[in-house]
């Protein structure tokens, strides 16, 4: 046993022989369920939002730099690829926002019952769609 953490992986078969415990099956073995999919997407949207901060800092730094720098930044944001990134960013933001509140509720001990956890998962999906669509309606109204 090279690593003390291996101690936790030692198990015993029914005839008493010491064995390494098998690892649980990985993602691709299980049927996707709303609770697992929302968990994976929470992490994925978190990473997408982290990448999106580059665009946000660029916009802020350009506003602090000069009219020309700000024009370049807003030109990019207004281009089709910039808009595509922004649509993805708002959807990721609202998903992470809604599901983050769901996680906080769990942290406070609420909503663990399976029907509740399933319902809250679908509520997050619905909330994301509604908030994202609402955001873009407001964007085009404000413009």
């Amino acid at each position, binding site marked *: 046993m090279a690593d003390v953490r291996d101690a936790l992986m030692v198990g015993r078969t029914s005839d008493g022989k010491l064995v390494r415990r098998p690892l649980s099956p990985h993602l691709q073995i299980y049927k996707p369920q709303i609770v697992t999919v929302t968990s994976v997407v929470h992490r994925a949207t978190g*990473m997408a939002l982290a990448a999106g901060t*580059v665009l946000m*800092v660029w916009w802020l730094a350009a506003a602090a730099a000069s009219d020309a720098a700000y024009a370049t930044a807003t030109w990019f944001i207004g281009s089709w690829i910039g808009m595509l990134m922004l649509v993805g960013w708002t959807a990721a933001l609202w998903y992470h926002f809604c599901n983050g509140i769901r996680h906080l509720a769990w942290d406070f001990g609420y909503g663990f019952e399976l029907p509740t956890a399933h319902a809250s998962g679908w509520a997050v999906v619905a909330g994301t769609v509604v908030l994202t669509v609402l955001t873009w309606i407001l964007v085009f109204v404000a413009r």
Partner: protein
Amino acid sequence: MADSKTPQVVIMRSMLGRARGLGAAKSGTQHWKSQRVTAIALIPLSLWFVVSIFGLIGAPRAAVAAWAAGPVTATLLLATIVALFQHMYLGVQVVIEDYVHAERPRVAWLLAAKGATALLALAAVVAVLKLAFTG
């Protein structure tokens, strides 16, 4: 003595040593708590930020500068930046720790993520302070 059917596992570490070392995670609940505290802070801050942006769509740079230069706005922007990048690093750190198994690449990725996060956060802070003090 334990009977021969019990797995023989020798952990050469005292209870006190384990408590002091805070176990394998090495930092107790600090990471978990910090992630939750910043998450709670980001609920109102991210809503405020997105709503504020609606008023700035298509606005010239001077309008954005005037908006950011207000003391309340500058304070909230800095609060958002601090909470956001702290929360972001905690999340990125966990993802790296989960998926990069070999020690050296993992440490390299963690350092790179920390450096990138710190630079982004500082750039955002400098931008807000410049707008707040010089317009």
